[in-house]
């Protein structure tokens, strides 16, 4: 197999759950002001958050109440109001393409035996707002290794559920349904890339993409496809929903990049949910150390 193994994630990026919660409590007690940051850089980085900033977790009510999930409406509060019609169990995921073990897997079988992980990641929406979210899930790489993709598998394509009865927003033609997304194989295998099944230590709420969604923290949020029902291992770059909708505004790669503007707004700054003023957007959303090498030699202005 020609799958390039990415450099191992630093162990300090990964925190097991009880430790994560005790640290969170400790951080909360210390407070995340200037003093907190000075005292706790080790702990902050242990949670996957770089130490230079006072990056507080975005409150649960915003993480689960302010969402882009057009399958339930185009307003930010629509998903929370409408997603109760989604049935996240039983749920199966179809695996197809250049892979040794194509089949339709029950979601619980797909993850059985894998250790669930807690990761605090920044989420940067292409609309220039951002959050800090404690996800829970499984590295996509571990799932992919189980499925044993072949050498022709250069990309992984993902598909969201298509069912207007469960997802009433699909009755409107605002996007081409079902939602589709994709990653290059090395991006999919990167240790930061997660299949997420929970948030804030709880099962993932429907409006956040239950029962399983993708989280790729160095890319704009729309790459994080929700309510996944299919994974295809393919040779060609797969089509992606927002790129189909507006190719000059949304690319396949969609790496967070402050130097490449969206045609209608600057990407140099972002508004962290809960803050009044904007802060600077970091290249690759602050994960450049871990992922910039994936794009060495590529023109990121063209491959936006």
């Amino acid at each position: 197999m020609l799958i390039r193994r990415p450099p191992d994630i630093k162990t300090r990026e990964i925190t097991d759950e009880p430790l994560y919660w005790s640290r969170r409590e400790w951080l909360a007690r210390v407070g995340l002001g200037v003093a907190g940051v000075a005292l706790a850089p080790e702990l902050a980085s242990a949670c996957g958050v770089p130490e230079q900033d006072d990056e507080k977790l975005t409150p649960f009510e915003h993480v689960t109440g302010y969402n882009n999930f057009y399958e339930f409406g185009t307003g930010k509060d629509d998903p929370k109001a409408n997603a109760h019609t989604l049935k996240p169990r039983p749920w199966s995921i179809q695996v197809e393409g250049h892979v040794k073990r194509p089949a339709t897997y029950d979601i619980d079988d797909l993850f059985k035996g894998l250790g669930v992980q807690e990761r605090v990641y920044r989420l940067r929406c292409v609309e220039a707002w951002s959050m800090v979210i404690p996800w829970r899930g499984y590295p996509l790489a571990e799932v992919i290794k189980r499925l044993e993709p072949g050498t022709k598998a250069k990309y992984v394509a993902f598909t969201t559920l298509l069912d207007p009865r469960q997802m009433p927003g699909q009755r409107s033609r605002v996007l081409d349904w079902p939602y589709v997304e994709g990653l290059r194989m090395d991006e999919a295998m990167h240790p930061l890339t997660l299949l997420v099944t929970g948030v804030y230590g709880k099962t993932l709420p429907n409006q956040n993409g239950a029962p399983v969604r993708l989280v790729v923290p160095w890319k704009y949020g729309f790459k994080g496809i929700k309510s996944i029902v299919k994974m295809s291992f393919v040779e060609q770059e797969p089509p992606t929903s927002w790129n189909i909708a507006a190719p000059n505004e949304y690319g396949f790669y969609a790496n967070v990049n402050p130097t490449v503007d969206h045609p209608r707004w600057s990407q140099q700054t972002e508004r962290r949910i809960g803050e009044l003023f904007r802060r600077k957007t970091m290249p690759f959303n602050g994960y450049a150390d871990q992922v910039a090498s994936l794009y060495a030699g590529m023109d990121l202005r063209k491959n936006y």
Partner: protein
Amino acid sequence: MPRRGTDWVAWAKILVWAGALVPLAVLLWDATHGGLDAEPVKDIQHRTGKTALVLLLITLANTPIRRLTGFGGLIRFRRLTGLFAFCYATVHFTSYLLFDLQFAFGDLAEDVIKRPWITIGFIVFLILLTLAVTSPRSMVRRLGSRRWNSLHRLIYLAAIGTVLHFYLSVKKDVSVPLQFAGLLLVVLGARVAVAVHDRRKRALRPSRDVT
């Protein structure tokens, strides 16, 4: 002096003031009681922008409604609703200057030059500013009513520009901007109908009647 006439105007003006200030009062209440959404700045901008547009449409509807109903007293409220539209547009623009740009005027210039929807919004604001400054009666006298009238026709451009600005700012779901575009078409259509009607009536009369 027709005392009775001015009495009802005074009362009605109080009502217009109260009505026009309701959205601002709700906004201030929500801002101080956690009622804005997770992105409060966007919420402020969306609300004030929509209110400004609604007031602009009400201002534009003044003449057609007056002509269709024959209720001439309505003209007394046109300047008031127009100035309130300007007030909301000012809050809208100021919140962008303050919270998005932190008064970095270089960034404003970049936005205005690079992004058509902001270019349009900025021009609309300049138009509304001009109309507000020239709205007092003393300015009508100073400019002469003919020149004042042609200057204030810019409000049509401002209204069309506002709807376009709204439409271009939306990511994908343009249904609300399209609803406003529909309302604008109705108002402009009524205005055109009134103008055509006037012209015909004038054409039927001897030319010396033209004023």
